[in-house]
């Protein structure tokens, strides 16, 4: 039976890997249809994210918010909730983060940095809490509410930026810069000390470490605490959870809040580590891509990290493909979409096949 556990694990890893290879195959067909050489295109693509330290740095930078939004989706999923609201949660988190960063400018970094992070987490938590409460109290489906709150968050931050907090004398719809004491440093100096040649221009920053810490925390909460036990119990069988004395409503609300706070922390990377201000509409669907990341990562924190890095590599490669070949970068987006479809559909096929082989 121990062996079966091992097989189970192999399945968990093999199946997304097979889906990825299948997606590359589908992509190759598309590239061929465009009369290009798939090998060449793929070489360019993976060279972008994997060919240099700088490139990999960009891939990790791109992966950082996806780790967080992926964790947000995965965490809620463990409680049986489908959090489509990562996009809204990260906007609210990022805005509050920036707001704290320029409003509390007088505070010393040791106070200001944690406060800004807290603001980001709280903003996301609040935006997750609302659909959680509606679900627990009235049974309203969280998918509808999280989607609707995405619009509210995007338009509300748009309003706040343009009408109330816009940087003076600027055309760009963005807030003032946050205090330099709220900036979190880039990783380049640290990397250099470790003998890795990451150039100073690379935007990769300490938010990456934060996202990894959040991933570890998600794992510990889910699998090592009573709260996590109860969350997973609710996700698996609300009836059994109630039987086990678990307050299902409370767990739903908490799970959504925690999930939202993870998405909210995207603001740390965006605002404190990179742009140093809130830019209206900065997220290009990070919250939604998080759903794909969680799916590919099998809703496990470690899987989410790996899937996010893969997506980061693809994103970085997309740029290279755009610049150095005649294939539009959208192809990489197509590839990402095909991966997701392959994961969902191919997974079942592969499992059945593997299950039959391994008996």
């Amino acid at each position, binding site marked *: *039976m*121990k062996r*079966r*556990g091992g097989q189970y694990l192999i399945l968990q890893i093999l199946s997304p890997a097979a889906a990825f290879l299948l997606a590359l195959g589908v992509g190759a067909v598309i590239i061929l249809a465009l009369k290009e050489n798939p090998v060449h295109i793929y070489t360019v693509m993976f060279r972008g994210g994997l060919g240099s330290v700088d490139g990999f740095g960009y891939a990790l930078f791109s992966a950082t918010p996806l780790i967080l939004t992926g964790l947000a989706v995965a965490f809620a999923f463990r409680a049986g909730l489908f959090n489509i609201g990562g996009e809204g949660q990260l906007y609210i988190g990022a805005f509050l983060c920036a707001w704290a960063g320029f409003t509390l400018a007088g505070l010393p970094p040791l106070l200001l940095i944690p406060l800004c992070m807290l603001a980001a987490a709280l903003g996301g938590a609040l935006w997750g809490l609302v659909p959680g409460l509606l679900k627990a109290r009235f049974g309203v489906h969280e998918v509808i509410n999280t989607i609707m709150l995405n619009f509210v968050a995007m338009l509300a931050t748009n309003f706040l930026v343009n009408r109330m907090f816009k940087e003076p004398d600027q055309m760009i719809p963005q807030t003032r810069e946050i205090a330099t004491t709220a900036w979190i440093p880039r990783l380049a100096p640290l990397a250099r000390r470790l003998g890795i040649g990451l150039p100073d221009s690379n935007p990769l920053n300490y938010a990456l470490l934060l996202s990894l810490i959040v991933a570890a925390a998600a794992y510990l909460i889910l699998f*090592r*605490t*009573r*709260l*996590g*036990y*109860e969350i*997973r*119990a609710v996700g*698996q*069988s609300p*009836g*059994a*959870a*109630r*039987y*086990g*004395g*678990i*307050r299902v409503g409370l767990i739903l609300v908490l799970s959504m809040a925690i999930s939202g706070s993870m998405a909210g922390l995207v603001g740390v990377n965006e605002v404190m580590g990179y742009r140093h201000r809130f830019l209206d509409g900065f997220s290009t669907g990070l919250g939604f891509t998080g759903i794909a990341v969680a799916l590919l990562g099998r809703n496990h924190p470690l899987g989410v990290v790996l899937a996010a890095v893969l997506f980061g590599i693809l994103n970085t490669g997309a740029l290279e493909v755009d610049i150095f070949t005649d294939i539009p970068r959208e192809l990489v987006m197509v590839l990402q979409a095909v991966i997701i479809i392959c994961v969902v559909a191919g997974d079942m096929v592969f499992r059945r096949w593997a*299950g039959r082989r*391994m*008996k």
Partner: protein
Amino acid sequence: MGDENELLLNMTGITKRFGPVVANDRADLSVRTGEVHAIVGENGAGKSTLMRVLYGLIRPDEGTIELRGRPVRITNPGMATRLGIGMVHQHFMLIDRLTVAENLVLGMEPRGRLGVLRPGRAERAVRELSTDLGFELEPDTPAGDLSVGARQRLEIMKVIYRGADLIVLDEPTAVLTPQESAELFRIMRRLRERGKTIIFITHKLSEVMELSDRVTVMRGGQVAGVMETAGLTPSRLAEMMVGRPVLEQLDKPPLEPGPVVLTVRDLAAADDSGAPRLRGISFQVRAGEIFGIAGVEGNGQRELVEVINGLRPAASGDIILEDRNLSGQSPRRIRDRSVAHIPEDRHGRGLLLDFTLWENAVLGLQHRRRFSRGWLRIGAMRGHAGRLVEAFDIRTPSIDIRARQLSGGNQQKLIVAREVEQDPRLLIAAQPTRGVDVGSVEFIHRQLLDLRARGKAILLVSADLEEILTLSDTVAVIFRGRIVGRFPAEEADERTLGLLMMGREENGDGSSDGAGRGNGAGSAATGEGS
């Protein structure tokens, strides 16, 4: 097909694997024309798998099927129907709003020219079959108004209407009262007289003895034996099923009941749709007493158990444990007052199927300091699970497998172990042995009697009369949300209980005082078409 010993069906070497699980391992089944052939075996012995292969619901990995001497490949239920095989499932597939006649012809409605429906023909068919075989069904009763027994008769009628001459009944008596079972047996005998062949899956040895001509015993996916029923004893049969001798005698010493532990007073509650299900129910359970509640399912038992455990709000009434009022308390609070609960739905409530055994071993107790202080104390949880597995003989290769991977009997043992081990003042056991193999039933009964001997109060709710009668000190019958009879166990007999379960007052000897309570409305007739 007149010859007595002519083989109608011959399945040979049927093997079916589900992943690493071998559900059927080279199983053979041969059924003679015109016989009643029982298939018995523990849960997970492969009976249902074999029948699903026969009915074309699943395809075997190996093996052949011969029907009337000719090899056949049955790939779907439609094909099975065309070959004259009919199956009556445990869960009825009727449409409540349609009438008996409409349900009968559903999917093959008789049409005249231009495709116009001819409802008259369906009604005539109901009447003919009804008088011919004693089904006692009226064509224009809506299926929703039928009693459980009548619904089952309608299912059988459907199968016959579709031309089946080999009828498979999957645990048909599981949901019936003794009277309804007797009725079913009459029909089965009549079908046999008309030359129909019946395969009959059951757990209950007495039914095998009473009804079947031959019996195939299955164990662990294999056929453990095929025998003529005549000359067989129940204990020999049980032994073959379990693979070891089964002690049928339970040790139940007389006990002087102690003080009252649970008092339920005028309790009323509604079901999920808001319809009243408990209409003022009152009783007491004493320490050292097993209080059995008998009744046909759906008469308020589920609601009663859920209300006592805090899983469902009461509309009115009180639940008092010793001297504390439990009404309106949360499930956790109630559990912390030393009330344990074996729920009737072990998959939906009692277990988290994708959790490991060690995680399941603390469900409901996860908040106790023993098992968590914010962080889970995984060592303590695993140790606890290990002890349960050991002490309660739960057959598992490891405590790290998922509850889903255990057999039904072992799943139930895990729940019983978890609940009994808490040493509760009150145990509520709802259908504690439903769908559980003979060996585990015996074990679970022993555990309940052990608790009783230790002076605990036990509320036993079961649709299985035999179980109620074997274990209880006091027997009460629930019908439509009321207690319609209450007896000391010695004075209760199956016939009286069965009648009360159907809401009829006992006729004939009125030897017991049981029907004295609340019988007025209780005796309203069921909507059975007759």
